[in-house]
């Protein structure tokens, strides 16, 4: 019996820890578009190291995951989705650190700084008439930024279904 309770507590702790630092807005949005969700965990991203560059692994060693979610709909519906995502992320306490807004495309970068290392980054996007959101938990070690050249961009674009987004 004791063992059962220990397992339940451990399971609950794991769930809580896994959800800490993740955006509730992104989570809720991903449930509304179950066919347009792409998750890339660190182990998967490591496989995109086309040159087997050790610095690339150092670059992403504190990166937990990338999550890309986008809409089926387009046009005005997508624009209202984008605006909703923006409001939701802001209401969670994310701080906008960069933004680009033009008639046809919008891109807002937010950060939720929790305890030092475990920051969560969210990018809300409106492009090509569609809306989407990219969540990055953890961070890139900028000392190894040059190793970004070893990223297999084509493979990553395929995994993220970026072609669909265009």
């Amino acid at each position: 019996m004791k063992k059962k309770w220990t397992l339940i507590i451990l399971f609950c702790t794991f769930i809580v820890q896994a959800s800490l630092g993740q955006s509730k807005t992104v989570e809720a949005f991903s449930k509304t578009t179950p066919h347009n969700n792409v998750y890339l965990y660190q182990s998967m991203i490591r496989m995109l190291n086309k040159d087997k560059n050790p610095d690339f692994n150092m670059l992403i060693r504190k990166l937990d995951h990338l999550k890309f979610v986008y809409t089926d709909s387009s046009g005005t519906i997508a624009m209202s989705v984008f605006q909703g995502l923006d409001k939701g992320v802001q209401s969670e306490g994310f701080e906008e650190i960069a933004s680009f807004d033009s008639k046809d495309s919008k891109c807002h970068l937010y950060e939720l700084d929790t305890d030092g290392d475990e920051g969560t980054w969210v990018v809300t996007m409106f492009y090509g008439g569609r809306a989407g959101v990219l969540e990055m938990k953890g961070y890139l070690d900028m000392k190894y930024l040059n190793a970004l050249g070893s990223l297999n961009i084509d493979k990553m674009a395929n995994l993220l279904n970026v072609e669909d987004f265009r």
Partner: protein
Amino acid sequence: MNKIIRSIAIIALLFMVTGMSAQTNGIDKFYEKYQQDDRFTKISISSKMFGLFANFEMDDANEKEMVKTISKLKGLKMLVGESIPEAKSIFTQAIKRPAAEMEELMVVQDKSQELRFYITESAGVISELLMVSYSENSVVMMSLVGDIDLKQISKLSKKMDIEGFEHLENVGK
């Protein structure tokens, strides 16, 4: 009676401080005004974003200096209006405040276009660089705030593809 006067003075001071902090750079007023206007492209970068550059490790001495310069910046705001018939009138409005409160750094002018650079400088430290320009139906405003090294920014301007910034190259010489 004294208490009432003191309270009014405190409230007035608070309003003044709030008013000053609400307009932190030379284009905030216009950035807010045209926030919902689709004819304008808006770009904003916060100090946190620039701060990330501080972690970049560069091998080249020039690149190191450039990274140091960027990491000292506290914010960038840019407003680009295309197909704006009233571009010249917006430009005239936009230079009123800097003309009165900032130091003019450079003016480039011909029949159909005008570009002005302004700076806010105190004790040899430049805390804001403002660029305002118009040509025919377009108007551009850009405000850069932080600890600005004009010589380095002019070098950086070569790499930045911002219309009008090429004139800054002469400043650093």
